[in-house]
């Protein structure tokens, strides 16, 4: 893909690059990316055991549980790293961003991006994400992933015999775990797509690999 999209012919001057994704940021993120894609796939293999049988049911369950535990620890890495390094400030929307900033960003995705307008929010050492990113990353990392981890670990504890098996509870928890998985799958698709909306289609991917964001601006 060589066609430039987004802000390609915008008038804005890029002042340079800014280092925003530390090695820990990138490590937890890519473990998460691989892990959650695997969890969605093995989870679907468990759920649609009769039609989506890439792995046998047993191996799908085994892989799902192993990856599930890796992702649980990885979430812990994200949480404590951001807590102690005070990087949670990047995720917290400021008062004037909610809701006007959200609207501005949504308008950009729904209209401006097609017209070749420039990004409404530029990135700098104080701002890593636009308001929409902040909100969706908060939702995913503070609500969805912990929810999947809690319900998943609960199911896991029943199947290992750590807590008593109860099919009523199992029904409830697998149901909500399944609903969470569908939302997670939708997030991953939309997220991967939105990574192409940077300055160049691949520039956000480069950012998450090198750590340097190329859209520095006020």
């Amino acid at each position, binding site marked *: 893909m060589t066609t430039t*999209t*987004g802000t390609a012919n915008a008038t804005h001057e890029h002042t340079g690059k800014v280092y925003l994704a530390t090695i820990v940021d990138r490590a937890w993120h890519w473990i998460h990316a691989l892990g959650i894609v695997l969890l969605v796939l093995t989870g679907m293999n468990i759920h649609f*055991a009769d039609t989506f049988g890439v792995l046998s*049911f047993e191996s799908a369950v085994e892989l799902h549980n192993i990856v599930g535990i890796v992702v649980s620890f990885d979430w812990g890495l994200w949480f404590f790293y951001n807590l102690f390094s005070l990087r949670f400030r990047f995720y917290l929307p400021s008062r004037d961003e909610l809701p006007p900033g959200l609207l501005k960003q949504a308008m950009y995705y729904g209209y401006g991006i*097609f017209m070749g307008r420039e990004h409404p929010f530029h990135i700098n050492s104080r701002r890593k994400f636009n308001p929409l990113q902040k909100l969706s990353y908060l939702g995913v990392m503070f609500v969805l992933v912990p929810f999947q981890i809690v319900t998943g670990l609960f199911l896991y504890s029943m199947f290992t015999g750590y807590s008593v*098996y109860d099919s009523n509870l*199992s029904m409830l928890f697998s149901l909500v775990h399944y609903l969470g998985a569908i939302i997670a799958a939708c997030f991953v698709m939309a997220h991967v797509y939105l990574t192409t909306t940077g300055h160049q289609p691949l520039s956000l991917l480069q950012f998450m690999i090198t750590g340097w964001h190329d859209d520095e601006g006020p």
Partner: protein
Amino acid sequence: MIQQERHLIMKRGTPFGILSWAFLGLLGLGSAMAVAAPGATGGAQAPGASLQQGSPQQGSPELEERQPEQRRQLTGVDYCMACHGYDGAGDTTIDDNGLAHNIYVDPERFGSSVHYTDDLKDCLGCHVAGFTVFPHENTSTKTCLNCHEDHFPEYEAIKLNLEKSVHNDNDKAHLDCSACHSPHAVKRATQATPTEKNMACIDCHEGRFNESGESLLERHSWHPMAKIHLYNLPCIACHSQPDESQPGQHAFKHLITRDGASRDCNDCHEPSGKMPWYLAAMGAPPDPDSFKNIESKTYLTGSSRNSLLDMAALLLLAATFLGCCGHGFLRYFFARRRAAQ
């Protein structure tokens, strides 16, 4: 069930688990000794223990001519078992219905069948004529309805289903009840284990009437949980379809073949699936409220699904995917247009 089984396996490894297994083992040993003890009550006695208690038969004139002690000897189960309980005995002639005539009677299965335990500890009770001469000739044997006249209406209902089933609906065989439900192994549905029930099918379909030559497990290997289902469920759970107009035990008598049998988890595991019907046929009352109770007990992660929910989920996934593709396409389209201007 899957999880329950896994759960049990895990428990076996724990100290508590080992203790409880040891306890169960002791209990089993104790009860086995109690049953084996002379004069024990309650436990079913094996054919060997109950000799010499038959009564002279009205319907067998040859017997009338013999001495009393000779008569008694000839009616004992063990006497017949000397030949028929020998597992080298087997298929002899081919009967009119297309089936091999098998003269072997498994002493263990007969010993635990209701025709043995419920007082009929006597071969000549059913084999009424021709069996006290060797080789047997001009024989006459009672049929089910000779004794169970009171079940005639049920029999008629079952017969209607039998006529629709593959066992009667083809040109190879026309089976009657006893072809599958051996009178030498009958048990109440609620008492027979799945393995015992499946013997009715396996007796033929693992041997003479296995057209593909593959083992049962091979033939069911398409199933994601083949072993667990094959070894724990009755064949008819999949190879029959309940008919709502015939609740209870008749529901599963309409057998269906490989091509007709369901391959869809939801067919059983969905709340409206047929598992509750099956459980109802096994003794649970067939009223809708009790189904609700059964539903929640048969829930399995993965295999229990709701097709409406799955449809909604797949629609949401497809919408997200198409939304991304559409947005991307529009971006590309407008960028091309701008470049052209």
